[in-house]
C-alpha cells in the first residue's frame, strides 16, 4: 500500500480524511466543552470566539458536537464496511466457487435487495429494527453486503476459468487451498476499491437516516440528527445547518477522492 504512487486527488483525500480522523480522536482535547453540556442562557448563539461554530437550541457548542459526530460517522462507516465486506466476500466466494443451487438462491437474494433504492431499503429496515446506534450499524450491514457478494461472485467466476486455477484443481488441490492461494489474493484489489466508495455511501446513508428521525438519536451527536435539529431553526440559526453539513460533505468528498485514487492506481482498466 505504501508504495502506491500518490496523485493530487489521493493526497487531497488523505489529508481531508486524516484531519477528520485526528480531530475526532482528539475531540476532548480540542474543545473545552462536552458534547452534551447544555447552557440554556447561551442557546442559539451565532459563531463567536468562545463558540466557533455557534451553539444550538440547548446552548450546546456546535464545534464540539461536530467533532464527536465525526466519531459516530467514521465508526459507522468503517465498522459497517468491514463487516458487510466480510459477509459479502464469504458469500460471494461460496456462490461463485460452488455454483449450483447455493449460487441461485444467494443471487436471487441479492436481486431482491437490489430491487430497492439503497436509502429506502435502509430506512425501512432501520424503522423496523428500531432506533439507536447499534441498529443503524445492523441496518447498513444488512443492506450493504449484497454489493460485495455480487462483485466477488463475478470475480470468482472469472478467476475460476483461468488456467492456473484449473491447473491447481487438476493437481487435486483442496478447495480451501485454491481459495486462499489463488482466489483471495486477486480479490483484494476490487474489494479495496469498492470499500473506499462504500465508506462514503454508508456515512451519508447514516446521516440521511438520522436526519429523517431514525438512526442515531439525540442527545448523542450525529451529523444527521444535528441537521435535523437545525432544520427547525433554519430561520434564526443558519450555523446549525451549515457546519454539520459541511463536515459531512468534506468527509464524503475526502473518502471519494481516496476511492478515485485507489481505483486509478490499483486498477487502471476501470474508468468512470
Amino acid at each position, binding site marked *: 500500500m505504501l508504495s502506491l504512487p500518490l496523485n493530487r486527488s489521493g493526497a487531497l483525500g488523505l489529508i481531508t480524511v486524516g484531519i477528520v480522523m485526528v480531530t475526532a480522536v482528539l475531540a476532548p482535547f480540542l474543545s473545552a466543552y462536552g458534547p452534551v453540556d447544555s447552557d440554556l442562557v447561551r442557546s442559539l448563539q451565532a459563531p463567536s470566539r468562545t463558540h466557533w461554530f455557534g451553539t444550538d437550541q440547548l446552548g450546546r457548542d456546535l464545534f464540539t458536537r461536530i467533532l464527536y459526530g465525526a466519531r459516530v460517522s467514521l465508526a459507522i462507516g468503517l465498522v459497517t464496511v468491514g463487516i458487510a465486506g466480510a459477509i459479502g466476500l464469504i458469500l460471494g466466494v461460496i456462490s461463485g466457487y460452488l455454483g449450483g443451487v447455493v449460487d441461485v438462491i444467494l443471487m436471487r437474494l441479492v436481486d431482491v435487495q437490489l*430491487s430497492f433504492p439503497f436509502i429506502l431499503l435502509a*430506512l425501512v429496515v432501520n*424503522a423496523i429494527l428500531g432506533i439507536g446506534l447499534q441498529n443503524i450499524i445492523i441496518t447498513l450491514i444488512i443492506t450493504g453486503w449484497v454489493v460485495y457478494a455480487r462483485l466477488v461472485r463475478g470475480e470468482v467466476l472469472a478467476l475460476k476459468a483461468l488456467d492456473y486455477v484449473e491447473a491447481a484443481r487438476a493437481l487435486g488441490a483442496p478447495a480451501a487451498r485454491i481459495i486462499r492461494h489463488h482466489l483471495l489474493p486477486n480479490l483484494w484489489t476490487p474489494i479495496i476499491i469498492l470499500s473506499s466508495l462504500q465508506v462514503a455511501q454508508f456515512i*451519508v446513508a447514516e446521516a*440521511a437516516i438520522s436526519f429523517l428521525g431514525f438512526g442515531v438519536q439525540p442527545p448523542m451527536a450525529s451529523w444527521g440528527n444535528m441537521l435535523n435539529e437545525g432544520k427547525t431553526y433554519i430561520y434564526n440559526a*443558519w450555523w446549525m445547518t451549515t457546519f454539520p453539513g459541511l463536515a459531512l*460533505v468534506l468527509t*464524503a468528498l475526502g473518502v471519494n477522492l481516496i476511492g478515485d485514487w485507489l481505483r486509478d492506481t490499483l486498477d487502471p482498466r476501470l474508468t*468512470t
Partner: protein
Amino acid sequence: MAQFVARRLLEAVVVVFLALTAVFCLQFLAGDPVKLFLPTDTTPKQIEEYRTRLGFNDPLVVQYVRFMRGALRGDFGNSLRQQQEPALRLVLDRFPATLSLSAVAMLLALGTAIPIGVISAARRNSWFDHLGIGTTVLGQAIPGFWLGLMLIYVFAVWLRWLPTSGRGTWLHYIMPAVTLAAFVSARFARFTRSMMLDVLGQDYIRTARAKGLAPPRVLYKHALKNASLPIVTLLALQLGQLLGGAVITETIFAWPGVGRFLVQALLNRDFPVVLVGVFLTAVMYSGLNLAADLAYAWLNPRIRYA
C-alpha cells in the same frame, strides 16, 4: 426476443414476490405491531381486542396467505392510522405529486448533464472540463438533504424568492427539483463524458472529421448517437434512484408525495401503508430495470438474447 422478455418478466415477478415476503416477515421482527402503535395507556383487554380485529392472533401461515391473497387483488388492508381508508388508495393518491416532481427533476438533470458531459469530452482538459469535473465530484459528495437545506436558507430565508414547502405553483418545483436532480445530474455528466471520450477515439469519428464534416455535426450526429446507448440504460436505472431520493427531498420540502407519506408511515408504524410503499417501489424498480434491458436490446441490434 420474446423468450427473453418472458424470462425477464418472470424474474421481475419473483423479485416482487420475495420482496413482499421479506417485508411481511420483517414487521414481526419489530415486536408486536399492535402494541407499537397503540398509546401506552391502552389496557391489555383493548390490545387483545385490537389484535383479534386486525387478525394478528391468527397463525402466521394464515396471516401470510391472507396477506398474499390480498396483495394479488391489490388489497393491502386499511391504514392503521386513517381507518376506513385502504392503504393502497392512500399511497396512490400521492403518486402524481411524486411522478411530476421526478419528471421535472429528470428533465433538469438530463438538460444540464448531457451538454456538460459532451462539451467536457470535446474539450478535454480545457477549463470547462476541469470546472465540469470539479462540479460533478462535488455534486456527488453533497447529500441531497443538505443541499435542500442550503437552498432553503439561501432562496427562502435569505432572499425570500421561493416558497419553502408545499406544492402549488411552478415556483414550488424549483428547489425540490434541483435537489433531486443534483446527484443524478452529476453522475450523468461524468458518465456522458467518459462514454463520449470512448467514442471520440474511434476510427469512424476520425473518418467523419477527415471528410470535412462540421465539428458540431460530428459531435452530435456521429459521437453522441453512438454514446447514447449506455446513457439510456443509466437513465432507466437512475429513474429508480430518484424514487429513493424522493423520500428525502419530499420530507425536506413537505412535498405531498409518496416518499414523505412513507416516512410518516414508518414513524407511525403504519405497516399496511409501508407494505404498499415497498410493493410499489419493488414493482417500479423491477419494471425500470426491465425497461433498461429492453431499451438496450432495441437500440443495439447487435445484442442478441438467447
